[in-house]
C-alpha cells in the first residue's frame, strides 16, 4: 500500500518535470499553430549550456540565470531568422525546418560534448528529501521542480491575461490577420513566443539535469513526453498542460512500479488511450 502511495507521489512530481517540458510546446502551438520537433533537443541544449557554464566555473545559480535569457535570445533569433520566413498555410516547411534543427542540435551536442552521460551537480540538494511520516518521503529537488512548473504557469498566465502584450499574444492566436489591423506585428509576437518557449526549455533543462542523467540523444523522447502532456491536457490552458504532464508522469511511474521495463511504454499507452476516449484532451479549448 505504502509502495503505491509512494508511486503516486513520485508520478505527480515527475509530472511537474513533464509539464515544464510541455509548457513551451503548448505556448508555441497555442500562438503560432506550429509544432517544434526540435523542442526536446532544445531542452537538452539548455541542460548542456548550464553544464558548460558551471564547468567554466560559474556557480550553478549564476549559470541558470545566464542560460535562461540566452535561450530566450536563441529562440527569438531562431524565429526571426528562420521560422518567420516559412510562415503560411502549408505546415510542411516550418515542420521540416524544426526537424532539421532537431538533427543539427542533437549532433552538434554530440560533437561538442560527446555521448557521455552527464548530470548537473546540485550539491547536497541532490539527496535532500522531505519526510512525510510513516516512512514516506519526497525528494526536495523534485518538489522544487513541481513548484517551478506551477510558478512558470502562473507567471505566463499573468503575462497573457493581465498585460497589453499578453492581449496581443492572444489576439494573434485568435486571428492573425485582424491582429495586424490592431497594430500588432505578428512576426515580432512570434519571435517573442519562441523566445519565451526556449527560456522555459532552459528551465526545464535545468531540472532535467538536476534530477537525472542526460546525454545528447535523449531530446526526442522529451519531445514525445511534452507532446503527450499537451494533447492530454487539451490545448485549453496551461493548467491543462500541467494536468497532462501529471497524467504522463503517473502513467510512467505506475508502469514502472509493475515492471521497470514498462515505464516509458505505459506513458505512451496512456496517451493513446486518452486520444481514443477523449480526442480533444481533458481540458479542451472552448472555441477552436
Amino acid at each position, binding site marked *: 500500500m505504502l509502495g503505491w502511495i509512494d508511486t503516486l507521489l513520485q508520478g505527480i512530481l515527475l509530472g511537474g518535470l513533464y509539464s515544464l517540458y510541455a509548457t513551451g510546446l503548448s505556448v508555441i502551438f497555442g500562438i503560432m499553430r506550429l*509544432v517544434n520537433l526540435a523542442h526536446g533537443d532544445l531542452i537538452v541544449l539548455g541542460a548542456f549550456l548550464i553544464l558548460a557554464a558551471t564547468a567554466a566555473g560559474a556557480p550553478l545559480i549564476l549559470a541558470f540565470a545566464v542560460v535562461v535569457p540566452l535561450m530566450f535570445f536563441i529562440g527569438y533569433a531562431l524565429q526571426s531568422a528562420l521560422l518567420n520566413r516559412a510562415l503560411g498555410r502549408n505546415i510542411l*516547411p516550418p*515542420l*521540416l525546418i524544426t526537424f*532539421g534543427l532537431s538533427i*543539427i542540435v542533437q*549532433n*552538434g551536442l554530440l560533437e561538442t560534448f560527446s555521448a557521455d552521460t552527464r548530470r548537473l551537480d546540485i550539491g547536497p540538494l541532490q539527496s535532500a528529501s522531505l519526510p512525510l511520516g510513516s516512512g514516506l518521503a519526497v525528494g526536495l529537488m523534485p518538489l522544487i521542480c513541481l513548484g517551478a512548473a506551477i510558478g512558470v504557469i502562473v507567471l505566463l498566465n499573468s503575462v497573457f491575461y493581465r498585460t497589453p502584450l499578453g492581449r496581443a499574444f492572444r489576439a494573434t492566436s485568435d486571428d492573425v490577420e485582424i491582429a495586424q489591423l490592431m497594430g500588432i506585428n505578428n512576426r515580432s509576437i512570434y519571435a517573442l513566443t519562441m523566445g519565451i518557449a526556449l527560456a522555459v526549455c532552459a528551465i526545464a533543462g535545468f531540472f532535467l539535469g538536476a534530477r537525472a542523467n542526460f546525454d545528447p540523444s535523449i531530446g526526442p523522447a522529451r519531445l514525445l513526453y511534452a507532446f503527450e502532456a499537451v494533447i492530454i491536457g487539451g490545448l485549453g490552458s496551461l493548467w491543462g498542460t500541467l494536468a497532462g504532464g501529471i497524467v504522463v508522469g503517473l502513467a510512467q511511474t505506475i508502469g514502472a512500479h509493475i515492471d521497470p521495463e514498462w515505464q516509458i511504454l505505459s506513458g505512451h499507452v496512456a496517451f493513446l488511450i486518452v*486520444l481514443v476516449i477523449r480526442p480533444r484532451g481533458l481540458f479542451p479549448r472552448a472555441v477552436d
Partner: protein
Amino acid sequence: MRPEANKPAALGEGRHSPRFAVATATRASIIAALAVIPAVLILIALPAFADRALLQELFYVFTMLTLAQLWNLLAGSAGLISVGQQAFVGMGAYALFAFTIIAGLDPVLSIVLAGIVAGALAVPAALIVFRLRGAYFAIGTWVVAEVCRLVLAQVKHLGGGTGTSLPPDIAGSMIGLDFVRHLFRVRGPAARDILSYWLALVLVVGTFILVYRLLRSRHGLALSAVGDSEPAAESTGVDVFRTKFLIYVVTAIVTGMVGALLFLQKARISPDAAFSLIDWTAYVIFIVVIGGIGTMEGPIIGVVIFYLLQYYLAALGSWYLILLGALAILLMLFAPSGVWGVISHYFDISLFPVRRRLVVPERAGLRKESLR
C-alpha cells in the same frame, strides 16, 4: 475524368472559348515512358554483368527510393506528414523474423506476409493518429513507432532489446535461390544478393506503378483535392477520411515489405535499428525534400543526391547529419519545391504527368496554363 482521356480532344470552340483540351501526357513523358521499358530490362539483366558490390549499393538505393516514393505519396499528395514510418519498416522486419524463425516459413513468402502485418498495424494506428491534425499528426505517428519499438523490445523470442540474427540456413533456403545459383553460376551469398536485388527492383518498380496509377485514378483527383483544402474536397463529395485512410494503409503495407526485405538482407535485427527514426524516416524525408515533394520525379533525383552525399560524406559522422539537417532547412527556405521543382519550373517538363493540364493552342494568343 478517365485516364484514357490523354489525347487532346476539342472540347469547345467559339469567340470566348478557344479550342482547348485537357491532357495528362507531355512529350517528355512519352519519351520517358518509351525509355523506361528498356531501362527496367537492363536493370533486370544487370546481375549478369555487375559485381556484388554494385548490386548491394543498388539494393540500398532501390529500397530508399521506394520508401521515399511512399512517403512522398503520404505527405506530398495526401497531406499526411508522418515522421513515424519507421513503425512499418520495423514491424515488417520483425514480422519477417517471426515468420521465418518461429513459424519456419519461406523468407520470400514472409516478405509478403510482413506487408500484411504492417498493413494490419496501420489500421488501428490510423484510427488513433487521424484524430490529430497537421503537425500533431506527425508527432502522433512517432509515438506509435515508439510504442512498437518498446513492445518489440519486450519480445524475448526475437531477442528482446538486443535483437537477434537470422540463422544462415533460413536465408539459404529462400525460394528461387537455387535457380539464381544455377543461372549465374554463383555461390550462396552472391545468389542471395542477386535475389534481394531483384526483389528490391520489383518493389521499386511496383511502387512507381502503384503510385502513378493511384494518382491518375479517381482517388488521385480526390487526393489533390484533399491536399488543397479539406472542406473543398468534402463539398465535391470526396470522402476525405476514406481516401487518406486508404493511402495510409497501402503505404504501410509496402513500407512493411521494404522493411522485411531490408532486414532479410541485413540478417540481423534489433529494435533500435528496425525502428530507427534517422534511417527510415529522416533520410527518407531528406530524399523527398531535396528532390522535390509532391512530384514522382523528385524522389529519383533526391535518392541520387542522397546517395552521393552518403558515399562521400557519411564518414564525417555527426557532421554529415548536421550537413543534411542544414541542407534540408535551406531547401525549405529557398527552394521548397526541391531540385525537380526548380527544373520543371524552368523547363516546363514532366516525366510522370499526374496533373491534368489545360492545353490551349498558342495561336489563340494565350499562354499555356497548367491546371493543378
